[in-house]
């Protein structure tokens, strides 16, 4: 499995979105790059390695991942990346302990901002982009599909 596939597999569990939904944002590669810039390589390796433990007991593995003092804050940041398109600076203590660069809070890119999952979950769109058209706001949108992540070929 290549790194991107591993990253998306972990992201599926973290975000509750399917492979196809995540790839549809067009932001997967940028997010992986952002991650690699912000945290040490070995940490990225360890985090992506959890992709291989997922089958069958996703939730348990993810709960463990999020609770991990070293990987947990990064995993949470990955969720926020997908939903908001924003990388949040990891706090000072964590960075000192695990030797990460102080990458500031920033919007990853214009595309990342526009493709945040928070907008689709809200049945809305990012302000300033992907507009719905005149008077669409007067109608009730189709409700969000109940989305259990389905298994994909990895």
């Amino acid at each position, binding site marked *: 499995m290549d790194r991107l596939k591993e990253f998306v597999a972990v992201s599926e*569990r973290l975000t509750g979105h399917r492979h196809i939904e995540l790839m549809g944002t067009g932001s997967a590669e940028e997010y992986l790059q952002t991650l690699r810039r912000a945290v040490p390589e070995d940490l990225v390796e360890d985090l992506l390695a959890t992709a291989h433990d997922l089958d069958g007991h996703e939730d348990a593995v993810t709960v463990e991942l999020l609770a991990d003092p070293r990987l947990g804050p990064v995993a949470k940041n990955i969720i926020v990346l997908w939903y*908001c398109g924003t990388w949040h600076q990891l706090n000072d203590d964590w960075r000192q302990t695990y030797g990460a660069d102080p990458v500031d809070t920033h919007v990853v890119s214009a595309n990342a901002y526009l493709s945040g999952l928070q907008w689709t979950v809200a049945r809305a769109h990012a302000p300033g982009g992907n507009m719905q058209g005149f008077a669409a*706001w007067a*109608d009730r*949108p189709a409700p969000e599909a109940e*989305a259990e992540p389905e298994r994909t070929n990895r």
Partner: protein
Amino acid sequence: MSTPTHDVVVVGAGVAGAVMAKHLTDAGLRVLMLEAGPGTPQTLDGYEHHLNTFYEASAKGPESAWPTAPQVPQPDTADLRFNDGYFVQRGPQLYGSSYSRLQGGSTLHWLGVSLRMLPEDFDMGSRFGVGRDWPLRYDDLEPFYRKAELDLGVSADVADQQYHGITFADGYDFPMSRVPMSYADQWLADAVGDLEVPIGTESVPIQVRSYPAARNSMPRPGYGPVGALDRRGDGQVRPGLIGERCQGNTSCTPICPVQAKYNAGRTLAQIDPGHLEVRAQAVASKINVDPTDGMVTGITYQRYDGSSYVEEVAIGRRYVLAAHAVENAKIMLMSGLTGPNDMVGANLMDHPTLYAWGLAPEPVYPFRGPLSTAGVEDLRGGPFRSTHAAFRFDVANDGWRAPTGAPDTTVTGEVDQGHFGADLRRRLATTLTRQVRLSLAVEQLPDPANRISLDWRFLDPLGNPRPAINYRIDEYTLAGMVEAKRVAGAMFSRAGIEDRSDDDVQKWFPTIEHQGQVFSYHGMGHFAGTHMMGDDARTSVVDHSQRSWDHQNLYLIGSGSFPTMGTSNPTLTIAALAVRTAETLAAELGDLSAGRVGANVRSTDR
């Protein structure tokens, strides 16, 4: 004496200046416009560059799409966190509003709410015994409201707007039909039902109502909506082929991607370049006055490029300050022109505004459509105004974004609590779709102690002093805040909305305490009162035409001229007054050219 190069010198290329310039040039006059900030691109590509600036900004405040030049600092909403911005805030309360200093001015990021003032707003003094009367009545301004609605391109239906005595000329309707109300507005209107609230001695029915907006909707016959305009190097203007209809981008503030929302650049682009010269990066810094008769002889401005600047003098037959309420006062004070009883800079007002927000019992689907499409106007007027302030509500279409930073903070909040995966997705789908918010904008009265002055200890890069602000929110407004909160609470409980208004999350907002209640308030960008008009030269700075009493060839235009501000957002009234002043000026200069000169006017014709 130097010869005028233009008929009229206008300082400031915001909406007041642009509307003024349009009507003057339409009358055949030649106008020179001095604009402090960088020239905003008039090409479509140039405008779209600002859109990207906004997308990539991590703090998406009102100013985020519009960075200006370091030479012309401007207030920023975020300054309030540490009180370290452009304004030198002297308290006791913080003044919460901002504006922008670049070509196009603050309408580049305004919301577009275009309400007329109520007839009773024009005589607060004689009717309610508070504030003071305007030297104009609603009926004097009505024809100019119509012209301003045409200039700005306002969408509304007269049928919705006849309340509290507002009247319209026979057969008139707005240029475009009303912007459709959002699903959330319709839901709220239903859910509030026939709610009536007691106020003063009355019981007032509450209605969620569409408000007039300077955003393009469906045109009425005979009107062609103006969207994005593309003026390229050859000076030709082409329609940008977008923006003739609002598309629901939900970012009216800070930037409408397609210019379906009015901005002053649209008016500027429509002016014949043969009659208008816009000189950007030209900061007006001094009004030169002939001490013998008070006439203005020229306006000194600083033309900068990088870190250096040169001083030049603009000379016209008439002068118009249209640089915004604060900057108009600043330029006057920098020139030593203080008006009667130091009235220049005094009586600064705003609409201090509270947020109320909550969770609806079912999805209402916010984060779509213009940032708001409806309001509550029922408490803008009434006999209670003799004891406390009036107020109006905006019904937001963007959830809790303004007070809490939603949806981003909704996401981070859930993630911090350990939610992830399908559970997180479900929780967000439930919460984000049910966010309801109201803005409660409260009237403020003129108070001479609330004022702009200069602080020469703090200079900008061109050596100009920063404006200092003394500002106090008085009992009249505070009592209005109490009532506004109560009415919002009554709407929430009738509609089954769970109140989540939590002063803790807006910690950096200024706060004020009143009878044990703490209010977090913010500004609406509605500055007013710094050079108020009146019919007595001893108690006002300008007359009903916005002409300076002391300097008869000088006009100060904009919301600085308002003696009181009622509850309406000021810009439509600013534009209506600008049209009225432009017509006065054009008639006067026309008469001069035709030799029909009255003795009192001749002396001003330099």
